[in-house]
């Protein structure tokens, strides 16, 4: 299913800015699958409007993952309707459809149901079929669930299409906390006019946000309740209070404090409201990120010769291992929710790149380079990354598949947007 894609590699090489020379941009051998996707209006026409919206949202979701390319319905030799009743696989093979996915709403006494059939014409088989009840959900959410089902059926990992993104929008001296669906819909400011706002992070239940803001020129760590907007300070020490990240079980928050001098990693127990120091190095130690099993924290430290490098520390045993080995500037680690890779920002000849490495530091994959490439954050299924970069004079959020592919902007141009973080 995954073949060598020369087109992709060429595209990336052409798209690179001239000064970003030296990075060997990674591409997996994955070729997007051609999908014949169509939503058929209900027989009586009752659910036509949501059908059109759902068709579009599902298509956008699948395309945005860069795991799919959508065939134009004009090229279909057989109708999508026929695929629902009695599919002739040859009709779909001939137009090169790797996957056929057809959806139709049915109005029943208990409400609208969305029938979904997925076929693999080259293996002459139906991969899955399901019936998703429209249980009062908004059409967009329904569409994301349909896209998730197709993605999981075909790719084998859960979809991330029903997830959300938070980011920081800076205007003048103030910053807003902005919320949106992962596809950019439902964008709304949920926290207004912070004096500096950095490093928001979702709690694992997606109900709270930990963040770093400044009040009266002093940094503090706050919990922001997404349901009611209530802000609670949980870190307000002398010096630095920064880079909060929730543990995978939601019981702890790792953050950077400098209460005892050098910036070090501390862990906050949310229930007991107590802090415990994790690292004790006489150097900069910051940006903690948890392994998904909660056993390790990876972080940036200048303990080895003054340059920032990625280390990880075992919370129980106290063992410290160096992670990054390539380059003399490695920061902003973010551990994949799958556990198998760590995203980071790395520098080479004054160019910065988003890259991923294995937790033992090997197998570096450079994904994208650019001015002020910063703040990587993983989608919950570990398939996509978002980051911010300053391509045209203002920072903007982009997404890129973790296995390569190309960057796509997900916030409007000519704003100052940064610190994007994906819901869990």
């Amino acid at each position, binding site marked *: 299913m995954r073949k060598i894609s020369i087109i992709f590699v060429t595209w990336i090489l052409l798209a690179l800015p001239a000064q970003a020379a030296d990075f060997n941009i990674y591409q997996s051998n994955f070729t997007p699958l051609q999908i014949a996707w169509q939503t058929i209006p209900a027989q009586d026409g009752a659910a036509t409007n949501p059908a059109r919206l759902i068709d579009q949202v599902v298509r956008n979701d699948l395309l945005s993952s860069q795991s799919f390319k959508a065939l134009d319905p004009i090229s279909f030799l057989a109708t999508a309707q026929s695929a629902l009743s009695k599919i002739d696989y040859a009709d779909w093979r001939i137009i090169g459809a790797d996957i056929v996915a057809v959806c139709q709403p049915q109005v029943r006494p208990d409400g609208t149901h969305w029938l979904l059939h997925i076929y693999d014409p080259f293996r002459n088989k139906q991969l899955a079929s399901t019936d998703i009840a429209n249980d009062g959900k908004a059409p967009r959410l329904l569409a994301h669930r349909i896209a998730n089902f197709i993605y999981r059926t075909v790719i084998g990992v859960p979809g991330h299409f029903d997830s959300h993104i938070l980011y920081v929008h800076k205007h003048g001296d103030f910053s807003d906390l902005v919320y949106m669906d992962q596809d950019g819909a439902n964008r709304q400011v949920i926290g207004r006019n912070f004096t500096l706002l*950095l490093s928001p992070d979702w709690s694992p239940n997606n109900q709270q946000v930990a963040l770093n803001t400044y009040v009266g020129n002093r*940094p503090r760590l706050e919990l922001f309740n997404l349901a009611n907007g209530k802000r609670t300070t949980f870190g307000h020490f002398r*010096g*630095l209070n920064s880079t909060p990240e929730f543990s995978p079980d939601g019981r702890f928050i790792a953050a950077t404090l*400098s209460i005892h001098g050098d910036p070090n990693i501390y862990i906050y127990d949310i229930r007991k409201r107590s802090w415990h120091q994790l690292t004790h190095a006489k150097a900069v130690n910051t940006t903690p990120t948890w392994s998904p099993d909660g056993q390790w924290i990876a972080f940036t430290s200048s303990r080895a010769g003054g340059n920032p490098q990625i280390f990880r520390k075992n919370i129980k045993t106290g063992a410290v291992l160096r992670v990054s080995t390539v380059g003399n500037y490695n920061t902003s680690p973010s551990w994949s929710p799958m556990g198998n890779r760590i995203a980071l920002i790395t*520098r080479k000849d004054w160019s910065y790149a988003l890259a991923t490495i294995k937790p033992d530091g090997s197998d570096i994959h450079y994904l994208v380079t650019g001015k002020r490439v910063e*703040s990587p954050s993983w989608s919950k299924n570990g398939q996509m990354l978002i980051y911010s970069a300053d391509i045209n004079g203002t920072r903007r959020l982009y997404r890129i598949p973790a296995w390569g592919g190309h960057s796509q902007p997900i916030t409007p141009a000519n704003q100052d947007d940064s610190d994007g973080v994906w819901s869990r």
Partner: protein
Amino acid sequence: MNHRQQITLAIMLAASMVFAGCAKKNVVNADGSNKPIVHAGQQMPSTNGVAGANNMDAVRPSTNVIYFAFNSSAIDAAGRAVLDAHAAWLRNHPTMAITIEGNCDQRGSREYNLALGQERANAVRGHLTAQGIASSRVDTVSFGEERPACTGTGEACWAQNRHADIVTR
């Protein structure tokens, strides 16, 4: 003086006014007045100017900014001279308390720069406390790369952004 020299002189004068303005911006006089403190020819106190604890005439140093190299919190000779003068002044004004604000240029990660700015502020505090200034009188805060003095790119601009400011509380 030919025309070009006149222009050069004019630019230098303008630049010195700009920098004088910057240096002055964060300074609040001990008596709360906004009487100008910075005068031409009083830019950088020399190490000779460190008067020692017994000199009750120690003047408020005109420069309150210490600059750093990239990714460094080490204080160079010029920075030490500025700090020695501030230490002398603080010794003679035992009721005064200060906040040191650490700042970074925009290169590198935002979060790391926040910590680096704290290291710079800590380094400045360490230099002052080593000279007998009580650490309770010296607060620190880092703004990382969030408050650039110069918003352009290039070393000339970045160098201005890698600094710690001594601000009177």
